[in-house]
């Protein structure tokens, strides 16, 4: 049972020394001086269209001037939050779920603007028997990742229909799959339904799959934030002019999306093709656009409701006081 190794003491010394060395090596690097690069996190989804448009048209880079823009794409908010916690992201487009989680865990995060509302649909595979939310029992449903905005929405839908996820002792399997990969997962019949952000819902619909919950029936009659803009508080304190410049560029991008939808759709499509390699039919993109609203406004009440859903899903034990994270 006991390892009679005389070298043991030396080894346990090493075991002790290792974390200390690690401590020195990994000391967090705070944004002490003005930044020379802005690291922008976003996802290749239509719900992040302001980011896609800003990147495609060079709006962000123009706003930053000599400061370099370093765009980083993520699959879902949960991986983005991880990078945010590690201090790898300065400004990010992210869903309210992960943003609220980050705030609740005490990360230096500030919510500075809204980006999009609604724009998520529940799609069932065409050869499945799913016609309504209740039919999800016993089925495998994909979400972008566990704990992300769509996952929280899905758990709420299940809750309202007296269903539960399998890991909570229920019947519905919830599988995390990157939205762009859901097409392949549907084709291979690995999942039966999915709650995805646009344009992937519209793309699936164009392939003949059934929308069983549209952007309005998913939650709150469609009046819910899907993407918001967050900033690292330390970064914001050290670089207020960069944050202001970004906000202006973001507002421009949202205005462009609302004023010239056709041009905006082309820009989004071009950027999505660069990022995911998926070429989306303009008519499909148009349908996806119709289900998504772009706004810079932040709806505190909706965020609070989301926070409550987060608690309901068990991803947080208490809802943080969100007003302190909003931009003052």
């Amino acid at each position, binding site marked *: *049972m*006991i*390892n*009679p190794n*005389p070298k*043991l*003491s030396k080894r*346990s010394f090493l*075991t*002790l020394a290792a*974390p*200390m060395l690690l*401590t020195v090596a990994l*000391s*967090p690097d705070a944004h002490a001086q003005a930044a020379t690069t802005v690291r922008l996190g976003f996802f290749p989804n239509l719900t992040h269209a302001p980011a896609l448009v800003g990147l495609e048209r060079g709006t962000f880079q123009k706003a930053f001037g000599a400061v370099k823009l370093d765009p980083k794409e993520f699959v879902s908010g*949960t991986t983005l*939050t*991880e990078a945010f*916690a*590690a201090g790898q992201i300065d400004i990010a487009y992210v869903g309210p779920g*992960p943003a609220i*989680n*980050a705030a609740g*865990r*005490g*990360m*230096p995060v500030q919510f500075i603007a809204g980006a999009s509302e609604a724009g998520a649909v529940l799609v069932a595979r065409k050869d499945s028997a799913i016609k309504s939310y209740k039919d999800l029992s016993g089925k*495998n449903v994909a979400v972008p*990742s*566990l*704990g*992300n905005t769509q996952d929280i929405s899905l758990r709420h839908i299940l809750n309202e229909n007296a269903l539960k*996820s*399998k*890991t*909570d002792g229920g019947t519905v*399997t*919830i*599988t*995390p799959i990157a939205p762009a990969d859901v097409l392949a997962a549907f084709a291979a019949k*690995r*999942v039966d339904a999915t709650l995805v952000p646009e344009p992937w819902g519209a793309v699936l619909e164009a392939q003949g799959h059934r929308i069983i919950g549209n952007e309005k029936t998913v939650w709150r009659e469609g009046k819910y934030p899907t993407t918001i803009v967050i900033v690292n508080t330390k970064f914001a304190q050290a670089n207020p002019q960069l944050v202001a410049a970004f906000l202006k560029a973001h507002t421009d991008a949202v205005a462009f999306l609302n004023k010239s939808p056709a041009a905006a759709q082309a820009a989004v499509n071009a950027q999505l093709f660069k990022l995911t390699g998926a070429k989306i039919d303009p008519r499909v993109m148009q349908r996806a656009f119709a289900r998504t609203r772009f706004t810079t406004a932040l709806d505190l009440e909706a965020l609070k409701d989301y926070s409550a859903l987060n608690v*309901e*899903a*068990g*991803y*947080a*034990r208490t809802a943080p006081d969100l007003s302190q994270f909003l931009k003052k």
Partner: protein
Amino acid sequence: MTTRPAEAARFTSDQPSRWRVLSWQILGLILILGVWWLVTDVLKLYPAYVFPSPSAVWKEIEYGLWGSGPQDGKLLSAVGGSLRRVLTGYAIAVLLGGLVGLLMGAWLPLRTTLGAYLTGVQSVPSIAFVPFAILFLGLNERAVLFVVILEGFIPVALAVSGALLNVPPALRVAGRTLGARGLGLTLRVLLPASLPNILTGLRTAWSFAWRALVGGELLIAGVASLGEQLEVGRNTANVGLVLGTIIIIGIIGGLFDTVLRAIESRVRRDYGLEVQS
């Protein structure tokens, strides 16, 4: 064992007693916890969302054991699910590996082909097989089981065939002289003689299987598992849950390893391969 007092005294001075080693180990544990506490709670070198304190991790474990929230109280079922999966996979791996190892030990062509390939396959990290397994078996626990069996099977097969070949020639000759032939020689002479080496292989197979399990569980969904706990912790920025799960994975892996090691050293002692108790 009968030893003269002087000899026994010298013997114990070289070999620290059980209790002494245990006290060192406990002391080491307290020191590690102390440094952890110092770095997190006292010096606050890291924000809590990067490196939580021991008490925060303990709180997560507590919630996992008897919390009542929607995601709480799942620790035991996660441990149970993971253990069931790994034990099933391990049992199959040991049976299959033992059989293939026997065949490889007995038949040279198989040894030079399959044996060599298995050594190559073993160098592939188990997690690399998971996407492939998912394609064949789907996003479910069968994919995980496949990887666990694969990872456990190889060390067992290689250990069994290697051990059979390393049986001292004298035993083989003696067996033959006493009339053992073919399968009888293998089963009644060679296999018992190679038991200590096979047990070492079984222990390696356990640690491979355990690691493969957790890696695989991270990639699938919908089953209660330690991998899922890790994933939920990661996705909800709950580092306390992540660290707590890592610690539990380490403890379980270590406990099983200790049990297997105890059996192994017991056998080695009985075979006269180790001097001390």
